[in-house]
């Protein structure tokens, strides 16, 4: 019974907070976090609503392993209808906020309606109240967290907040907790802003918030899991030392690093912005960008990057507030802010990343949108007059200015806040937006890695690497090696990855455990934590059920098989260099087979038989 079995429902319009019991049937069918909140959302909103309508709901949710001694058991998710995509949005974050929410006694918080004035939710164990946030509106995430802690004289309050990007409804605004961990993708922060909800502040001190079904068994299972993580080369050594950023050179050597808005697949400056470069002493001040690694609640991997900028760098030399250590670039951010727009200045990327954390916006979509804007500029479609400055590929100064303007919602930053799909459409070149379902690609080229292309096309929240990480078999050889250009067996492998990922995302643990853990390592932990029978077979069916539920929501929202697509650049413009030279996506070969292994019709609709089998 690792659930608290309590749901907090907050009506922002009426200003009320009410408690209701968790629907345990749904918990048994959807486990928790991603799956469970999706079930609530799908059951409570019309899929066709405007994401910014008060009728949309915003759910903060934990999993059964959140706040337990399971390694990485600190995750929470935010689920809503996303404004960037019009599809289901589910963004997952680490840090300490999720565990604190659990310690306060809540599995999830459902926000409905919109507040007539800015407010934040203050949760202190069983007590929950909406507090006036007029003094916080217009403030950054960092200022908001500091103010709330000071106001309540409690440094141990955990805060998840939006910055000015969320207030301004930047379509890829994030919700940031613990200063630099974020529910980053799909614009969940913009939905929060549309509800006049500035922050959720939690202090949890309960020791009776949840009860493990088998405490002794749980201790043994989690200890065994931690030993597996420690002994594994990736989770025991690679990720703690180099973080995800170590992939920069790997992916570049492989010819799969999207560069300058996906015009190229290798970046000549990759080494300069890599995980290795973060360890190198700068010639300017003799110090390395990387200060240390960092861990989220309960994490025994500690892949987080804590960086300190060169105080003499042009972007911060007169801004001492950025001279301290803070959240550094992870691989996706370094790629999007760097390679995607041709910038190889690690310090500038770190600054832009600080701004993304400070004002709450997704560095992947932001960086990719910079790349699209730079291509429009180089084509002469966007002008210096319109932007306010020159915007060629590789311009560090332009990257820095655009990050500042997007954070503040100033000038051309307002257009940047729309994301690349709307930006490129506005200027008559929708084909230059490197997106699926309106969401920008992360850091792997869908031509160079065929399985990742299929993963992007079929992801329920738009282009995303965290819904089915085919990089594992295609690059890392985990669990088996698959050649990047092969298509055989990839639809089935992707389905397995997607279903397993849905389980992990619903359990309350981090996906990175799966570099070392298989379901055989996760299952005993869930079995000992939760009441009932949680066999591997059942867990995989839960994952498949979640995937199909998300799909059903998207179809009901108006998306179709035509949205399971890739930009024409990836389908028609071959990779120009490197080992994948000549490659275009073979999506047309893989997609029909994918629908088939999913038990969907040729139109990508779950068949009646599939729906019945899964109970969706």
């Amino acid at each position, binding site marked *: 019974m690792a659930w608290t079995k309590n749901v907090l429902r907050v009506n922002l319009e009426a200003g009320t907070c009410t408690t209701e019991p968790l629907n345990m049937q749904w918990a048994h069918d959807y486990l928790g976090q991603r799956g469970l909140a999706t079930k609530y959302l799908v059951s409570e909103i019309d899929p066709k609503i405007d994401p910014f309508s008060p009728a949309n709901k915003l759910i903060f949710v934990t999993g059964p392993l959140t706040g337990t001694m399971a390694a990485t058991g600190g995750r929470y998710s935010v689920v809503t209808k996303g404004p960037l995509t019009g599809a289901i949005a589910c963004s997952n974050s680490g840090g300490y906020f999720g565990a604190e929410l659990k310690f306060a006694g809540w599995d999830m918080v459902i926000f409905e309606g919109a507040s007539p004035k800015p407010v934040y939710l203050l949760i202190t164990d069983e007590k929950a109240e909406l507090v006036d946030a007029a003094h916080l509106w217009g403030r950054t995430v960092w200022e908001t967290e500091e103010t709330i802690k000071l106001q309540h004289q409690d440094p141990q309050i955990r805060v998840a907040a939006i910055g000015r990007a969320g207030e301004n409804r930047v379509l890829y605004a994030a919700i940031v907790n613990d200063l630099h961990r974020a529910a980053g993708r799909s614009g969940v922060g913009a939905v929060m802003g549309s509800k006049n909800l500035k922050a959720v502040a939690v202090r949890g001190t309960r020791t009776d918030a949840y009860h493990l079904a088998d405490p002794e068994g749980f201790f043994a299972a989690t200890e065994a899991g931690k030993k597996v993580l420690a002994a*594994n*080369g*990736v989770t025991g*050594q*690679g*990720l703690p*030392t*180099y*973080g*995800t*950023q*170590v*992939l920069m*050179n*790997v992916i570049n*050597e*492989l*010819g799969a690093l999207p560069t300058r808005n996906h015009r190229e697949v290798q970046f000549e400056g990759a*080494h300069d912005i890599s*995980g*290795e470069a973060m360890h*190198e002493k700068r010639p300017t001040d003799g110090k390395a960008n990387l200060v240390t690694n960092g861990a989220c609640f309960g994490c025994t991997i500690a892949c987080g990057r804590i960086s300190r900028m060169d105080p003499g760098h042009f972007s911060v030399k007169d801004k001492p507030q950025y001279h301290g250590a803070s959240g550094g670039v*992870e*691989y*996706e951010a370094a790629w999007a802010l760097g390679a995607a727009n041709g910038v190889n200045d690690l310090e500038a990327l770190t600054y832009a990343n600080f701004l993304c954390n400070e004002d709450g916006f997704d560095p992947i979509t932001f960086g990719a949108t910079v790349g699209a804007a730079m291509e429009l500029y180089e084509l002469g479609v966007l002008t210096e007059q319109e932007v306010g400055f020159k915007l060629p590929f590789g311009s560090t100064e332009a990257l820095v200015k655009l990050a500042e303007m997007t954070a503040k919602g100033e000038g051309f930053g307002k257009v940047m806040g729309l994301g690349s799909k709307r930006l490129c459409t506005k200027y008559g070149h929708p084909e230059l937006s490197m997106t699926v379902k309106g969401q920008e690609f992360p850091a792997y080229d869908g031509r160079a890695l065929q399985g990742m292309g299929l993963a992007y096309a079929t992801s329920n929240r738009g282009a995303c*690497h*965290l819904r089915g*990480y085919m*990089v*594992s078999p295609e*690059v*890392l*050889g*985990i669990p088996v*090696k698959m*050649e990047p250009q092969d298509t055989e067996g990839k639809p089935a492998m992707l389905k397995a990855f997607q279903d397993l990922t849905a389980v992990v995302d619903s359990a309350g643990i981090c*996906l*990175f455990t799966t*570099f070392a853990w298989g379901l055989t390592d996760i299952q005993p932990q869930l079995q000992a934590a939760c009441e009932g029978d949680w066999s591997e077979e059942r867990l995989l069916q839960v994952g498949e059920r979640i995937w199909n539920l998300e799909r059903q929501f998207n179809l009901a929202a108006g998306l179709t098989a035509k949205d399971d697509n890739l930009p024409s650049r990836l389908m028609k413009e071959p990779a120009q260099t*490197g*080992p*994948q030279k000549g490659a275009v996506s073979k999506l047309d070969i893989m997609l029909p087979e994918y629908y088939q292994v999913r038990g969907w019709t040729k139109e990508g609709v779950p068949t009646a038989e599939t729906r019945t089998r899964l109970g969706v």
Partner: protein
Amino acid sequence: MKITLKLFASLAVHLPVEARSRHRMDLEVEAGTTVAAVIQRQGIPPGQCAIVLVDGAWLAAADQATRVLAEGEVLAIWPPVAGG
């Protein structure tokens, strides 16, 4: 003949000091030299060679002893790493 050897992450210590910051060096090897021979020559523990690419193409551990390097090829090696 000349090849290029790239050693990343913690494997950079197996490069000469002056080559470590760029993680690469040019290497003079005899014709017929295999990937496994280069790994041995540089003193790299074979168990630490998790990702081995020759000109960007994956080389399985089982093939390292028989894969002969050609003039100008790039051998790149990483320890167990991953990202996301």
